[in-house]
């Protein structure tokens, strides 16, 4: 379990240490990418708890979600419509759903453990 934690720390420190500045118009892409990554992560955790976790689905979902979100934002910028809101909305809803499911599962797990005892 320590390998993901180490990589998370490395990623965070690398992000803090990089001194590249991007112009304001690209910060939209960054935020939507983060949201996509967050969504995929929680989706993965939920799948793990559901015991339906699949590496391929997880990785492809991660990359595909990020790519789709960025593409949507790009198109939105080109068309002059705030299309990235769609991505934000979709990811936000899924995020809350996933978190709710995870919470429920964890609580149920604890309850069953108690009942077992």
């Amino acid at each position, binding site marked *: 379990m320590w390998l993901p934690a180490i990589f998370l720390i*490395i*990623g965070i420190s690398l992000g803090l240490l990089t001194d590249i500045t991007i112009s304001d118009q690209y910060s939209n892409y960054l935020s939507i990418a*983060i949201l996509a*990554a967050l969504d995929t992560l929680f989706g993965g955790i939920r799948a793990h708890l559901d015991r339906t976790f699949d590496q391929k689905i997880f*990785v492809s979902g991660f990359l595909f979600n990020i790519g789709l979100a960025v593409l949507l934002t790009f198109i939105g910028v080109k068309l002059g419509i705030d299309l990235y809101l769609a991505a934000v909305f979709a990811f936000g809803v899924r995020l809350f759903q996933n978190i709710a499911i995870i919470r429920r599962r964890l609580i149920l797990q604890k309850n069953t453990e108690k009942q077992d005892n």
Partner: protein
Amino acid sequence: MKLRGRHVVLSLVLFVFGFLGSYSFQITKEHAQIVQMSEQEWEKDFFYRQQLIQMEEKNRKLQEKVDNYRKDINQLEQAFGDDEAKIKTLVNEKKKLQMITGELPIQGSGIKLSLKDSAYIPSEENVNQYIVHDRHVQLVINELYSAGAKAIAINGQRIYKDSFVNCVGPVISVDGNQYPAPFEIEAIGDPESLQTSLELTNGVVDILVNDNIEVKLETMERVQMDAKIS
């Protein structure tokens, strides 16, 4: 192996996620200082900027005024300089005129003419035929003036525009001061022209000599006359 692969994938995703998250955080932190401003601050900022612009405008106008004033001052100074030069020439002219009218002492080259009663007066003749009369002196003075004399003095007394010369018996009175013969008439002016004009044929000197007066004419390098005391 399967577990490890899962871990690798998870760590990769977490790595990317951590990187993106912290990077975004860093960027927003950098931008926050500039971008995040409350309405009040904006208004204040705008107000101060407006004030600054107004002040700069004011400054510019004042600077223009200062420039204009400087130009004016320059012109005035120039005018003063011109006036000063004019005044200088006027003062010089006034001095010259004052010298000529006798209000200031004058000096320069000129001639000296001395008229003397005849030394020999035959006893049978009228003595009046042999002495210097006021008309002789007047003649000389008039001739000298018309020859361009700047100033004339008789026995050291200057002749002014309202001077008079007349006979009082054996002496001649100049402005009320009596002088006996010989009379020394000094004139300031171009010596050559003065002398020439006096010595014309049938001129003043000839007339005087004909009237039995001893005339002595000499050019002077330097003649000095005092100012009128009034």
